[in-house]
């Protein structure tokens, strides 16, 4: 990060916990990262590590029994956690928008897709009904919906999953946001459609200078889309670096494990590795390093002492006792 440029988004020590009947679930436990203008960052990690909770926290959309219990979310220097509900609504869909994993259920079945796009436009822009409709049709064309004027009046169930995700992108980008959060935007789609949707997101974000947070467990997708990568494990960031260094010089044993589990062309299938064991349930985290029960390189220390985030070589930030060069955070 260059010193002069303040990042668009800076998350500092975010903590989101769920207060369930069975106890407190610390789903996100001290996450810090930042996103510069025009930058795309990828958040990766296994299922349940807190990626969705992190992204919903950014928009203050965590619902009961969840609560942001600590940290700051600085967006253009303003702490979103301190905003009133009303102020926050002016940001949602306008400055920060979100695309979800489930295109089939993310659109309201009883309203036309056109009205769902216009609604977002009218909420944040001072336009009348007709102008909103025109803008919505422009957006539909931009995201590649054929016969946009006609499909403006279609109900969601008439469209395929890929088309619906395009509509979601149209909604998300309709107010020209500064930040787009895409939570596994292509997981539910066919491979060919996946590529189209990603390409579309990339084109539009370049056109509009939108920063993107893309959440996924697909490392191939990260390699293609992201400038920086954040690796999460059990509600914490275990490693982050720019995409080139992270793939070339992974530091954390978990990151190495993740990378080894992607098939490569020159590898035979049976050489594929997977990480032994399962992600711990956030309510039953082990003492010490959260990853040590699954870590082949674990030291004695790892069992008792939770490692802080270290600044390691090649610009990496790593939460691992094996890379204890310089402490930069907790």
């Amino acid at each position, binding site marked *: 990060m260059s010193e002069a440029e303040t990042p668009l988004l800076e998350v500092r020590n975010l903590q989101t916990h769920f207060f369930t009947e069975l106890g407190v679930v610390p789903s996100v436990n001290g996450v810090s990262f930042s996103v510069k203008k025009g930058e795309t960052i990828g958040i990766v990690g296994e299922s349940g590590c807190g990626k969705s909770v992190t992204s919903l926290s950014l*928009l203050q*959309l965590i619902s009961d029994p969840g609560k942001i219990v600590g940290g700051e979310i600085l967006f253009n220097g303003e702490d979103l956690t301190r905003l009133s*509900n009303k102020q926050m*609504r*002016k*940001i*949602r*869909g*306008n400055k920060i*928008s*979100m695309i*979800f994993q*489930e295109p089939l*259920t*993310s*659109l*309201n*079945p*009883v*309203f036309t897709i056109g009205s769902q796009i216009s*609604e*977002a436009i009218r*909420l*944040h822009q001072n336009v009348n009904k007709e102008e909103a409709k025109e803008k919505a049709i422009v957006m539909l064309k931009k995201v590649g919906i054929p016969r946009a004027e006609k499909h403006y009046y279609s*109900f969601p*169930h008439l469209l395929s999953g890929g088309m619906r995700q395009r509509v*979601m992108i149209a*909604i998300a980008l309709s107010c020209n946001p500064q930040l787009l959060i895409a939570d596994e935007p292509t997981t539910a789609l066919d491979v060919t459609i996946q590529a189209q949707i990603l390409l579309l997101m990339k084109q539009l974000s370049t056109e509009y200078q939108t920063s993107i947070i893309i959440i996924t467990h697909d490392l191939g997708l990260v390699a293609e889309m992201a400038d920086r990568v954040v690796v999460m494990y059990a509600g914490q960031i275990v490693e982050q670096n720019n995409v080139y260094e992270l793939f070339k010089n992974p530091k954390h044993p978990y990151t190495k494990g993740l990378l080894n589990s992607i098939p490569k062309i020159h590898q035979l299938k049976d050489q594929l590795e997977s990480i032994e064991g399962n992600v711990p349930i956030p309510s039953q985290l082990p003492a010490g390093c959260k990853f040590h029960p699954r870590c082949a390189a674990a030291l004695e220390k790892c069992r008792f002492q939770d490692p802080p985030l270290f600044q390691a070589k090649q610009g990496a930030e790593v939460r691992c006792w094996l890379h204890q060069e310089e402490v930069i955070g907790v």
Partner: protein
Amino acid sequence: MKKYLIRRLLQLIPVLFIITFVVFVLVYLAGDPVSLMLPEDASEEDREALREALGLNEPFLYQYFHFLGDLISGDFGTSFRYSQEALPLVLERLPATFELAAASMLVAIVLAIPLGIFSARKRNSFVDLFITGGSVLGKAMPNFWLGIMLILMLAVNYQIFPVSGRGTFVHLVLPAITLGTGVAAEMTRLIRSSMLEILHQDYIRTAKSKGVSDTLVIFKHAFRNSLIPVVTITSLQISHLVSGALITETVFSWPGLGQLLVQAVNGRDMAVVQAAVFVIAILVIVINLITDLVYRLLDPRINYS
């Protein structure tokens, strides 16, 4: 849409046949009307003569087709209690019943929508518990008991409302509350549960992520969807409304179809019973058709084939 309507209407024809048959069999099984029509000391010859004259000695199917023939010309026979044709007698009671039904639906809707939404939003709070408990109670209360209690408290003790009869707006209040409470209770429960389910849907999260206000999320995005199951199940509740109307009208001497039917059954005025049951059956069918259409208007995912 048009095709669908036509098909639905054609489907009614066999249903109507079944209804006429059931109505006929009911009366056929109810026993010999002759003993009621003649004085107790009538001779056996007189009875036989009357049976012959009424066609009661003909075979069952013959009697049924004869009955059908009369029906087609709108003739349900003559009420011996009122010495009038049965069908006009029944039809002239309809406005009173419609008035009561509309007023009690209004009571139900006005109570159920806010209560259901409120208790879904404040799930598991004290208020929710109170509303949910109240709706269980409201459903469990029999119409006749609630009607009598209301009369005792608000018409006899405090004399705010008239005890019975129809005429002004104040006459309508107690019967409408009596009949509306049960429906309101059921609707509240339904709206609450369908709202609860819908508030967890992905499209609600999408709406919020667009910056839609909480009020609009509830009343525009969620409520419209929650009506779909509510309308479906409400149409299944219509039979309860009908039986409730019979009792409520009787308790309040409300001069509607229900009261007429109960009196006719008690007096074995079979022509009126037949006409009333037939008209009620048609009403239920029409209401079902209407709710079905409303349901289709609410849910664009349904197609008409």
